[in-house]
């Protein structure tokens, strides 16, 4: 008689516990009719501070919406957090994600497309934005999937004091690969290196484009990397030569011991390739002056740079799309983008804010912030297919090994193509 009751009690306790555990997270409407939104992004403290200020301004205007900001430290962690929360059925209402990374979510139909919301909006007009940022966020090529907040690009950060000390002229628009290399060589001297950059696909891409090459065989439906032939290979070799032949970048052991970013911060690196993302950190420099310049152009080639853009996405299975859109609308409005531009982190995707005092005429460095705005004319993007994240990860691993001379160049280029090819069509 006693045993069955024991089992029954166990089941009751189990059900009660499960119900309690589930109940705690599914309730997003608090008693007073206020809607709670969860907003996820990645970035360090300096980067997320601007978003906190933007949300404060939003909440003061929308008393019925309460937004919780949940930042994570890195892009990888962002993907892990999104995946687990989607799988658990509790995705964040709104999240910021790069155009190279959202494809794997969009391909699963996990996102609520923002296109129709933008078409119905009284606040936002697509003409107010740099047109170039929309295409990478149209997953199917037509409807806008996510709302791009920034139009950052790859630029050359340079240490003005080191340039002066080495007697080289500051970079000017349209400078060539040869001038770039000569500058790096002039600065490289013992402890100081002329240039620092990640040897990654997104850093190499603009050099390939400038030389008239392509990174993949077909931008819409890529099946392989195309860096092993023609002008693309020429550009890849030129990039690899910076390390393997000219030695103007910190070699393997040096880079492992101290990252290029840290080297630049400490005044021992002449030029550093990065996007706008690093600006809030570089603003902490007080030992020397620095500025930004456009990337150099290939001999007889066209100027190109790489787009770096994140967009606000709405999770498909959410209940609060209307409220989420109001948050996105505010973040994309002039007021919202001004707050973020002041933080230094973003290159606003709105033309009016990008050309305003908070961006191009900001007191804080870089003085030549207009370079980012000018770059909007010469931006290109890598593909944004469902498996692009995996292609990049595999490619970067091989590129790093070639760049630092750990493996033979020819063997490496063959591996680069062979190892990434199966990933283009790989299933989930």
């Amino acid at each position: 008689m006693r045993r069955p009751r024991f089992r029954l009690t166990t089941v009751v306790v189990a059900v009660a516990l499960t119900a309690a555990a589930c109940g705690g997270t599914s309730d997003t409407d608090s008693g007073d009719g206020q809607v709670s939104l969860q907003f996820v992004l990645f970035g360090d403290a300096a980067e997320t501070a601007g978003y906190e200020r933007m949300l404060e301004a939003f909440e003061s205007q929308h008393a019925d919406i309460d937004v919780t900001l949940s930042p994570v430290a890195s892009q990888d962690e962002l993907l892990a957090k999104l995946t687990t929360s989607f799988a658990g059925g509790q995705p964040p209402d709104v999240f910021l994600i790069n155009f190279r990374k959202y494809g794997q979510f969009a391909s699963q139909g996990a996102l609520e497309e923002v296109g129709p919301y933008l078409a119905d909006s009284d606040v936002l007009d697509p003409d107010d934005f740099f047109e170039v940022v929309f295409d990478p966020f149209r997953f199917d090529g037509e409807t806008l999937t996510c709302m791009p907040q920034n139009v950052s690009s790859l630029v050359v950060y340079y240490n003005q004091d080191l340039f002066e000390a080495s007697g080289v002229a500051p970079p000017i628009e349209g400078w060539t690969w040869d001038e770039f290399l000569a500058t790096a060589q002039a600065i490289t001297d013992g402890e100081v290196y002329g240039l620092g950059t990640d040897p990654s696909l997104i850093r190499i891409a603009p050099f390939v484009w400038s030389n008239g090459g392509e990174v993949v065989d077909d931008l819409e439906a890529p099946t392989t990397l195309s860096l092993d032939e023609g002008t693309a290979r020429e550009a890849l070799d030129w990039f690899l030569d910076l390390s393997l032949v000219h030695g103007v970048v910190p070699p393997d052991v040096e880079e492992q011991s101290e990252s290029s970013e840290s080297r630049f911060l400490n005044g021992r690196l002449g030029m550093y390739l990065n996007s706008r993302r690093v600006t809030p950190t570089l603003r902490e420099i007080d030992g020397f002056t620095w500025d930004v310049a456009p990337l150099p152009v290939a001999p007889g080639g066209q100027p190109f740079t790489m787009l770096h853009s994140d967009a606000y996405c709405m999770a498909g299975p959410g209940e609060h799309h209307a409220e989420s859109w109001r948050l996105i609308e505010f973040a994309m409005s002039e007021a919202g983008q001004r707050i973020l531009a002041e933080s230094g982190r973003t290159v606003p995707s709105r033309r009016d804010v990008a050309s305003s005092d908070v961006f191009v005429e900001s007191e804080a460095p870089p003085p030549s912030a207009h370079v980012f705005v000018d770059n909007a004319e010469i931006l290109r993007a890598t593909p944004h297919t469902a498996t692009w994240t995996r292609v990049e990860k595999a490619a970067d691993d091989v590129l790093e090994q070639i760049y630092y001379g750990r493996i033979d160049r020819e063997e490496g280029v063959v591996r680069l193509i062979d190892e990434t090819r199966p990933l283009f069509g790989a299933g989930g």
Partner: protein
Amino acid sequence: MSTANRGAPTRRSEATAGARLVQGAGTAGARLVRGAAWYTAPFALGVVLLLVLPALTTFYYAFTDHTGLGDPNLNGLANFRRMGSDPFFHASLRASLIFAALAVPLRLFVATGMGLLLAAPRRLGRWYRAAVYVPTVVPDIVLALTFLWVFNPLYGPMNGMLGALGLPTPAWLGTPWGARSAIVIMMLFPVGEAFLVVLAARRSLDPSVYAAAAVDGASPWQTLRYITLPQLAPLLLLLAARDVILTLQVNFVPAYVLTDGGPGNATLFLPIYIFDQAFEFLGFGYGASLTLVLMGITVLFIALPLLVVRRWGFLRR
């Protein structure tokens, strides 16, 4: 004589107590069992909810195309066929096996060596023992960050030391074997639990045997070889089995922080590859099937030595 006299009544009272226990087994014993069931219920519930159910779900997902986003569809053995032609899986399997082959014997050697060395009472002995145990209570992430500094090729103490001795200073985390060695070296430190087990076991060995060995003029090496190790063998085997599980499955955090699978997939251990597949690339189904493979390998690695030594007979003790 006097000892025997004093011992006799004790033995009799033990016998009566035993008889009473047998008599009462029908009622008190049953109550004891029921009580135990009640006391273990919360734990059992936790195990079922948090371990058994997810493990069963993993079994199911392994045969689906689950992405974590939509509804999973059964796809038979497609995930396992994919492993056959997945070069990253092959690299990952290789990395895991090399690591286990290096780390398990070395970790066991360090834990046993330290345990036996520090078992005997000595001056400052408790400080030495604490020092050996401390790295075990250091969180994984702190351990990894510490060793990131230790293996810094220019500013780290490891190369500083090697350089001072006139030895070559490798670019540790930049080369496949450097990175593998670095992780093995790092994992030689958190061995406190096995160390404690060996320490306790050594102290419980009968001192009269050692006294007899000393009288017979046995050298320290002979004592170790013919007295200590044979008595500890069952325990060492158990520790080895446990360490196989640890090195195959629990190296995730330190390896993720130290090398993130690189360079050239040399340290892309299975747990890291599974994490990448499931959580970065939305391959829950594939990740689940990889997890099954990892479980299978672990079981195999534990079962094989156990089967081999079963005929030694000591496992029954």
